[in-house]
């Protein structure tokens, strides 16, 4: 097992290197950006001395090297200091927003992955039938529609014209009393945003799974499955899908960081309180601590997902495990 461990140590060391480089890049990224955060607090009542005092507070007047060390300490200890925009600690800001974004993106990703996979498999099984046409077209459409265009349309139709779903936010005002009432109210609020993300997302999955499935079904061991008199459903799920699992899981994990950008638009259109919007505001508002923290977390998420994808691939696909041991 020693080669296995050395392989993993090399992989983890590589990721830590990547993380460190990302940290340095993030730090300088914002210092490079022209502009000074305190300047944006434009208010005739702020005298020059008041502004100078503020920048002292945020430690902006200290030499760059000092700021970098402070930044490193903050990142490692996960306390990210104060956000310039709100004066609250960055962690607090993220804490109130993370649950919303995670539920939104998490459920959207899971739903579109499951729906997409199931449709992809059906399309591969029933070649030439209408279901394959749907998958091919929905795959194409989900790659080409600009998201906010679709989401606003959905909002107009299903929340305004036909008042099926609420127009905004994740809880109705005043909030219902009782855990179950609040839960159903929350879910009722999330149907449209999550639904729109799934509508935009499942096509990609369906197309990807269909192509993979078509390849796998033409493999010899599937024919052998039939030769062994196994029922078709058993072959499809226990043999074909089982071989499909490793690449599917890796793509699922690798696509996780990418969907954050989708959050910005969805959260604006449906007035949801999430990290996406906060991220954009932190960037445009030169809010170094918040932006720096958000990117640090995003980089962590990406690196973690890459590592997890590697690990999972090894577990799920024996060939890879064997291959690694050999090298």
């Amino acid at each position: 097992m020693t080669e296995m461990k050395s392989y993993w140590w090399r992989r983890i060391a590589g990721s830590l290197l990547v993380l460190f480089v990302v940290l340095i890049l993030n730090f300088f990224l914002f210092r490079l950006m022209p502009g000074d955060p305190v300047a944006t607090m434009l208010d005739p009542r702020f005298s020059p001395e008041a502004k100078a005092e503020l920048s002292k507070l945020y430690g902006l007047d200290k030499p760059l090297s000092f700021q970098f060390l402070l930044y490193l300490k903050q990142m490692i200890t996960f306390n990210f200091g104060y956000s310039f925009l709100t004066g609250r600690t960055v962690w607090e800001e993220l804490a109130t927003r993370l649950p919303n974004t995670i539920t939104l993106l998490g459920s959207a990703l899971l739903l579109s992955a499951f729906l997409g996979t199931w449709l992809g498999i059906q399309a591969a099984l029933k070649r030439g039938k209408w279901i394959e046409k749907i998958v091919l077209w929905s795959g194409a459409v989900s790659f080409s529609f600009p998201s906010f265009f679709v989401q606003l349309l959905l909002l107009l139709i299903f929340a305004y014209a036909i008042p099926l779903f609420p127009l905004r936010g994740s809880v109705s005002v005043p909030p219902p009393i009782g855990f179950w009432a609040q839960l159903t109210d929350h879910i009722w609020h999330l149907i449209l945003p999550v639904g729109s993300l799934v509508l935009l997302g499942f096509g990609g999955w369906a197309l990807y799974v269909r192509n993979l499935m078509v390849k796998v079904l033409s493999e010899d061991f599937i024919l052998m499955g039939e030769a062994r008199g196994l029922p078709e459903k058993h072959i499809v799920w226990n043999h074909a899908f089982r071989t499909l699992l490793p690449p599917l899981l890796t793509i699922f994990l690798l696509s996780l960081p990418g969907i954050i950008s989708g959050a910005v638009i969805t959260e604006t259109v449906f007035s949801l309180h999430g990290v996406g919007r906060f991220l954009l505001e932190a960037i445009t508002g030169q809010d170094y601590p918040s932006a720096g923290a958000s990117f640090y977390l995003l980089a962590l998420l990406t690196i973690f997902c890459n590592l997890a994808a590697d690990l999972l691939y090894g577990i799920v696909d024996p060939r890879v495990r064997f291959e690694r041991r050999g090298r």
Partner: protein
Amino acid sequence: MMSLFRRWSFLLLLFIAVLSILAPFSLSVSPNQEVAPPFSTPLWLKRNLPPTMKITLSENILKKNIAWPYNPPTQIHLSGEITLSVPSALVLETPTQKFVLHHLTVGKNTFDIDGRDLSFKQRLNFSPFAQIPSELFSEKGEYIFRVEPDFSAPPEMRGTITFDIKGGRWGLLGTDQRGRDIFSLFIAGIRVSLIVGISATLLASLLGLFFGLISGYAGGWTDTIIMRGVDILLSIPILPILMVLAAYWGKGLWQLVLILSLFSWMGTARTVRAMTLSLRDSSYIEGLRGLGAPTFYILWRHLLPETLPLLLANIALGVPGAILAEAGISFLGLSDPRIISWGRMLHEAHSFGAFTRGAWWMLLPPGLGITLLCLIFLDLGKFLEEQIDPQLKGALKQ
């Protein structure tokens, strides 16, 4: 290759490309020119809106009748430079009411009044939110526009008064918030979306090919360095980099293409590397190396042709991504306002309230345009993919 030319997507792409090349010459109106009042509706929309009219009064004609079978106009504008012998008033008589538009004094009068000015609304004691054109032209029938003397004596008048009644209808797709013709903007938008889409993906694919081949073939240290570089680039979100680079490099079209390609080559690099790895150990490459063929020769003559079909498919599938990225970037306001692209049109329509105004003719053309362009490239990509891997041929083949 022949079957490529018969494909619907290829023909449509050809048509659109030709359209965008001919655009600058064929369009009667230049995209940046202000042609009509902002947010005018397209001509074919049968809302029975009046045509744009200009009614003038001068020395000998102090009264004009206007036949009015239409719905109310969207804008009215009153301007003039006259000298009068007698104090009088500029009056508009509707079938049932009479409105005094402007009091004229003896001697020289210059005035420039628009239906949207708050002072004009207050003078006619309408509420500040009233729509003057629909208040004045509320009924269908005979209207009279004339200079009426305050007292009995008929006034002599020198100079002219013009009464512009703007129907608020214009061209094929109406006008945007700056009164520019949306149709010519739409045609001009093709050029940018095509250029950004194709050149960004081409550049990205070349970069991907270059790095993929080298890291795949060379292996060892170079491979790890390039792959770690790819990991680093993948874990940096594109958003802030775009803002920093846009702030530094300025916001031109080619800066945008450069930025886009810099952040989309990693995917191609990985696929090319995987392919090179599998080919590298194949027997005939081994044989070539045995014969002492230089690395460059092997890469150029053998590995490159192998990866080319995959690359073509990759390019065709990459273009939609680039087009949507451009639309996303202009949605965040990072693109140059002087460049007319579909993404920009969609963003401006949205931020100036096209959705609430129900101006779907402003939103659908760019939105569907982007979608159509993406579908075309997706179809081309699929076609190329099927050439490489026939099994993928789905039921789509007509």
